[in-house]
């Protein structure tokens, strides 16, 4: 069925064929799981991850064939990983359930059986009549039936849906708008037929059939009749509406979309490393299998008299044996793929991201906003940004329009304390003068024009001010105008109307087609005849009004370039304002009655035209908006945000290129760019503007490229406008990119939202694949925020759209510096070390096992006991790295923030470069060789290690290797740690202690449920041997010593700037507590600093 039929108040026809339709209930479900499906659904989703699936396969292989380790060894870690992830996801889902319940359980008023009943939001059914009071949100998509106003209109704001903060008027059908009480609604017989739910917020087609006195009246319904779920009722005491789309079928729910998963560069390199390790694993397994067959070719090796095979083993087919041998080796070495890597990374990101929200430096006192993390997946990407794309209005600036000055009839005025003061006068004299001087002629007309030519709505703060009924004017008289608040779609308009109010010409409200202003206390009513709406091509808007005296006048307001060409009189030459202001020009045109009749006819015919309505309207507008009389111009200033200049400078020092993308016009954009330090005075500014043809554009680009090559000494800035950009991108992408890359600052003006995203994508996909960050505050920035690697929303005035679609949200632009330079740096270092360390410790873990195969005929004998195999990753070595990755600070945050250059040290994913990866992997192999052969030389000389002459066995050998390994791997991390909080101490020494305590305990008992007691007292015996202690110490030192030497040599011979700043800080912060030994180390250090020539 294409349409749904909704019986208002569910009064179904008593006779006739009626098929009830089924609709969704009004429950909003954002949660993914229920109690019942959580386990199967969550498991399914987790095993879709490659790593988890891999371990599941290994586990199944262990279950099916005879493998060297029991299934528990891989089953338990897998279970652990799955459980941790499930707990995290379950917790997140529980939060969603809670939020859902809050929304679904919100109290709403519904008309049922003749009275107003309070119920829960989730109980609303399609067809219910719902009452919504002022400032409440609509609980479902409603067709407006009536409001408390006689004309049945209401105002809503849709800020939470599309980010538009202006008030929108919605209408009801005349037949229902009279039903303002419950009893009247009870008598209403109406049916709504409308389309099936669809996501488009601005489309709604339907009709309402009202039965009155036995006859049916059909009325069309459009989007202006539909109140969307999530929008908020403003300015109207209460409304009644009938629910047509409920729950998940409401337009808001349909607009919910899964955000595309952004993956960080670290994750990508992590996957590359995993693949490399998988290859290492496979080749080790293949090599072992081949060697096994080579070494066991002879019976005396394969099956000596002391070690016969069973019949079944002898008789199994060679191919099957080969495969199962290969699988067995795979199982034996499978721990080289770090199973807990993903879960640790996830935990690190989840827990680590709290620090952003907790940071006081990212907290904005005035608006009580702290930084917000929407996805923790990208924390480390904050440390990798190479390009920042920033919006201008609301991001660099406050988006708080302040009326600064105006030019009336060629004279420039400034606003001082609510008075217009002509330029060049001292304030006091000016104010005195202004009082007398301003009331005449052009000035007044100008002010009236400004206060009438707009689409501003008024909201009254006090709800009781509307009690009496519909006419807003009556209340304005009764209450001080402080209670009204202007709502406008453009902040400029709001600023202008507010300014004229301060000066004395106040817009006090509109009712239907009447607009009222109070000119210095005197009320005047104008009849609004036509509104010629704003559109971006014309860049102006006009109103046609009937003055109280009966004359018809057109007021128009718009960009300089859009109005000045059409003016015929007025002080065109003298009307100039300060360059950095957002300038709007105001003009008027008086119509003679004959002219107006003509205008009226033209407009009406265009508006009702069925074909080419757009074009005909444009034509009509252009016909009307000419022969204008210039009244003046207004200058509105958008204040720069705090510390924008410093922030941009810091980003530039950090090697980040900053591009400003704005919809504003060229002059304004350049002046803001200059004032915020994006462009320097010393910069040579190149322009690519107003290109109309392809060839022209290419020619200009080539010219620019030449100029860049000629003088590469000074810095260049580039200004591009939207039109030229689209030309440049269409054919000359490469050339354009080349020009851009050589410019230190780029400013794109007159950009459409999609163009912003296009620019981001262009850079993102350029050959260097730089990491991009987009920051913006408005709905028009959403596309670029989603496109960039990292999207940052500014919690500004333009609704929450950008914030909701962003990955991180901050209150002010200046916070970006700390977010990137400090948090980004830390997160990157932490996660990079985490990833490398994980691979390292697993190489250390498994390589001795591989080497042991050379000494046991490739029989797949494990070196370590299976309990150790199981617990290595989840108990013995898991916590130190997690704590490290949460708290590590290799340089003090202040240093990072004050020396943005340090950011370059980690750019281009340098800590996860192939070289560092190779270093860690080779280090892992080297350490593994030292563990194994160190222990081998010690014990392989086949002498006793105990003072009583008794001998050790294979399990003692494995335990020795394992002990050395656990300690070395933990200490290796300790060497990497620069920031030792008590937690680091606790987990580092705690892990080693835990290993010892656990081993003593594990080896101290005959475990009744284990069928072998291999480890019984092995650990104690090992520790009772003096040689073993000496061996453990020497092997650990041998492993870590070259690493320390390497670090020290590199630090002194080739120090990175990060290391240098550590030293600087080290000198200063040396007074920090701890052992006497350290004090003395610090002392020698202070000396180093002191030696420096200043």
């Amino acid at each position, binding site marked *: 069925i294409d349409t749904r039929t909704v019986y208002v108040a569910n009064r179904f026809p008593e006779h006739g064929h009626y098929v009830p339709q089924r609709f969704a209930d009004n429950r909003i479900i954002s949660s993914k799981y229920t109690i019942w499906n959580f386990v199967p659904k969550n498991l399914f989703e987790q095993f879709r991850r490659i790593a988890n699936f891999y371990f599941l396969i290994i586990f199944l292989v262990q279950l099916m064939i005879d493998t060297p380790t029991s299934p528990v060894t891989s089953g338990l870690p897998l279970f652990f990983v799955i459980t941790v992830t499930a707990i995290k996801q379950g917790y997140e889902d529980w939060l969603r359930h809670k939020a859902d319940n809050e929304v679904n359980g919100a109290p709403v008023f519904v008309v049922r059986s003749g009275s107003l009943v309070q119920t829960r939001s989730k109980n609303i059914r399609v067809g219910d009549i719902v009452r919504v009071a002022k400032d409440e949100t609509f609980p479902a998509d409603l067709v407006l039936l009536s409001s408390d106003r006689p004309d049945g209109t209401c105002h809503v704001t849709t800020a939470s849906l599309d980010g538009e903060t202006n008030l929108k008027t919605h209408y009801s059908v005349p037949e229902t708008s009279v039903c303002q009480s419950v009893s009247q609604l009870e008598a209403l017989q109406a049916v709504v037929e409308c389309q099936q739910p669809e996501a488009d917020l601005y489309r709604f087609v339907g009709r309402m059939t009202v039965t009155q006195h036995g006859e049916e009246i059909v009325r069309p319904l459009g989007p202006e009749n539909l109140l969307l779920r999530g929008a908020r009722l403003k300015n109207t005491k209460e409304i009644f509406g009938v629910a047509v789309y409920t729950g998940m079928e409401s337009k808001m729910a349909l607009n919910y979309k899964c955000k595309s998963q952004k993956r960080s560069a670290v994750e990508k390199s992590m996957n590359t490393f995993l693949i490399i390790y998988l290859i290492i694993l496979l080749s080790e397994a293949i090599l072992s299998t081949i060697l096994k067959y080579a070494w066991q070719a002879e019976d005396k090796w394969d099956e000596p008299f002391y070690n016969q095979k069973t019949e079944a083993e002898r008789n199994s087919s060679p191919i099957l044996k080969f495969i199962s041998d290969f699988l067995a080796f795979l199982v034996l070495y499978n721990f080289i793929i770090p199973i807990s890597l993903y879960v640790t990374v996830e935990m690190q990101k989840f827990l680590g991201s709290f620090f952003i929200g907790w940071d006081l430096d990212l907290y904005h006192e005035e608006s009580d906003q702290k930084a917000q993390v929407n996805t923790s997946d990208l924390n480390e990407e904050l440390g990798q940004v190479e390009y920042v794309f920033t919006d201008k209005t609301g991001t660099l600036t406050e988006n708080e329009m302040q009326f600064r000055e105006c030019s009336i009839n060629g004279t420039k005025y400034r606003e001082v304390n609510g008075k217009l003061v002509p330029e060049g006068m001292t304030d006091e004299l000016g104010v005195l003068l202004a009082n007398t001087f301003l009331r005449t002629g052009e000035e007044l007309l100008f002010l009236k024009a400004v206060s009438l030519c707009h689409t501003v709505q008024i909201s009254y703060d006090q709800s009781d001010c509307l009690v009496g009924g519909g006419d807003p004017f009556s209340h304005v008289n009764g209450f001080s105008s402080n209670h009204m608040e202007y709502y406008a779609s453009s902040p400029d308009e709001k600023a202008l109307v507010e300014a004229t109010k301060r000066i004395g010409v106040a817009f006090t409200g509109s009712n239907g087609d009447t607009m009222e202003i109070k000119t210095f206390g005197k009320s005047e009513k104008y009849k609004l005849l036509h509104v010629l709406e704003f559109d971006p091509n014309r860049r102006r808007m006009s109103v046609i009004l009937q003055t109280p005296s009966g004359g018809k006048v057109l007021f128009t307001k718009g960009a300089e370039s859009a109005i000045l060409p059409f003016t015929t009189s007025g002080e065109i030459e003298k009307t100039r304002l300060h360059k950095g202001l957002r300038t709007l020009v105001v003009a008027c045109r008086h119509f003679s009655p004959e002219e107006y009749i003509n205008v009226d006819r033209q407009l009406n015919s265009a508006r009702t035209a069925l074909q080419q309505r757009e074009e005909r309207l444009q034509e009509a507008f252009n016909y009307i908006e000419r022969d204008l009389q210039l009244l003046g111009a207004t200058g509105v200033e958008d204040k720069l945000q705090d510390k924008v200049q410093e922030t941009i400078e810091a980003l530039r020092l950090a090697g980040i290129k900053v591009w400003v993308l704005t919809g504003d016009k060229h002059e304004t954009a350049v002046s803001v760019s200059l004032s915020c330090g994006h462009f320097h005075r010393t910069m040579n500014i190149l322009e690519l503007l107003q290109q109309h043809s392809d060839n022209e554009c290419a020619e200009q680009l080539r010219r620019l490229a030449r100029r860049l090559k000629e003088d590469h000494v000074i810095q260049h800035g580039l200004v591009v406008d939207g039109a030229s950009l689209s030309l440049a991108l269409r054919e000359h992408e490469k050339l354009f990119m080349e020009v851009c890359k050589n410019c230190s600052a780029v400013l794109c003006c007159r950009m459409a939202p999609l163009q912003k995203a296009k620019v981001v994508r262009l850079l993102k996909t350029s050959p260097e694949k730089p990491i991009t960050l987009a920051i913006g505050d408005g709905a028009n920035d959403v596309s670029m925020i989603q496109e960039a690697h990292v999207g940052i929303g500014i919690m500004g005035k333009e609704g929450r759209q950008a914030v909701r679609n962003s990955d991180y949200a901050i209150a002010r632009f200046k916070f970006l510096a700390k977010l990137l330079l400090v948090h980004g740096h830390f997160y990157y270092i932490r996660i990079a070390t985490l990833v490398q360390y994980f691979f390292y410790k697993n190489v250390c873990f498994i390589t001795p096992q591989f080497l042991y195969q050379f000494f046991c*005929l490739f029989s797949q004998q494990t070196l370590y006991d299976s309990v150790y195999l199981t617990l290595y990753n989840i108990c013995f070595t898991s916590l130190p790295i997690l704590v490290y990755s949460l708290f590590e600070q290799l340089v003090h945050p202040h240093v990072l923030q004050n020396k943005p250059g340090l950011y370059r040290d980690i750019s281009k994913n340098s800590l996860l470069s192939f070289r560092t990866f190779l270093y860690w992997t080779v280090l892992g192999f080297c350490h593994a060789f030292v563990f194994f052969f160190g222990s081998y030389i010690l014990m392989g000389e086949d002498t006793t290690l105990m003072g009583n002459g008794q001998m050790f066995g294979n399990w003692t050998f494995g335990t020795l290797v394992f002990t050395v390994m656990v300690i070395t791997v933990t200490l290796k991390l300790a060497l990497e740690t620069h*920031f030792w909080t008590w937690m680091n101490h606790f987990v580092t020494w705690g892990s080693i202690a835990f290993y010892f305590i656990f081993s003593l305990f594990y080896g101290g008992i005959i475990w009744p449920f284990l*069928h072998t007691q291999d480890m019984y007292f092995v650990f104690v015996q090992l520790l009772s041997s003096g040689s073993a202690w000496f061996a453990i110490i020497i092997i650990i030192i041998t492993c870590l010593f070259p690493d320390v030497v390497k670090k020290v040599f590199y630090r002194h011979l080739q120090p990175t700037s990060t290391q240098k700043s550590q030293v600087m800080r080290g000198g200063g912060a040396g007074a920090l507590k701890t052992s006497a030994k350290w004090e003395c180390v610090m002392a020698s250090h202070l000396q180093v600093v002191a030696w420096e020539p200043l």
Partner: protein
Amino acid sequence: MASSYNAKEEDGHHSGASSGAGAAKNRKPDNTAFKQQRLPAWQPILTAGSVLPAFFVIGLIFIPIGIGLYVTSNNIREFEIDYTGESSNSPCYSCAKNVTWNSTEPCFCTVNFTLERPFESNVFMYYGLSNFYQNHRRYVKSRDDRQLNGDPSSLRNPSKECEPYRTSGDLPIAPCGAIANSLFNDSLVLYYIDSNNSQSEVPLVKKGIAWWTDKHVKFKNPGGNSNLTAAFQDLGHSTAKPVNWRKAVYELDPSDPENNGFINEDFIVWMRTAALPTFRKLYRIIQKKPGATPTLPSGNYVLHITYNYPVLSFDGRKRMILSTISWMGGKNPFLGIAYITVGSICFFLGVVLLIIHHKYDNRNTSADIPS
């Protein structure tokens, strides 16, 4: 993370706009050291300055330790003799040729050797095997620790891991498995030939060669140590001896009930599988004699071997080792050398770093950070 939608956002409420100045600033993060990442912390940096003392200290400690270990190891006397008999001029040649698993007749051979210097203190007698893979997986797991712990049900029904040495005919094997089955069964007796050419037997102690915990906890005879025959034979279900054994487990040392059955120390020693294919196992201890006389005076000795264990089939070797022991175990120069080497390198690098520290440090740290 996939779902970013949050139902609560529906009301589009943000306090910045609607909660006035009067509302409490409740979103302000706490100013705690933890949340602001300002926890007190020790921040060590590995610079030449900070590691230099460590290097010197390590060097100064390790070199003496190394010398101590090396001297200790060097003071240990060790004597080793291979009696495999694979070459025709070896005294055990014929035994090595003839002995198989099935031979019932023991083969005897004697090996003469001379100790140049006397062995003081306790002397430990080991047998060594080469090319014997006790660490083969099939071998390592072929045992039933429950059975060895005296569990009667495992005695009757040994673990499947023991295959193919689990049952013999219908009877369960005790002790089952490949390890037990291949128990080393040569017996070695040492005679001292004194100046008048008369042989005197050197007393060999067979107690204290296995780990105390193994002997007293891990290994237990079923039904106590008295009346082993009954435990293994009667009780309504008898067990078979391992196929390669000449005598049953309760006949391993009939003279001493504390050393018989599963708790026979030779058996326990064998059951501790060696880590590498060449290994030694403790066989007997020669106790120190009272007074100043050396335990084994220098001179000629003869080793009487009951040659039962065939090793030539897998290119194996058999050795007898006599060794004295220090507190750190047997002769092992590796540790001493390692300590001396590492200590010296540390010391040397300490010197190098000292030079670097003086020469380069000034220049480098004063260089500005590029921006």
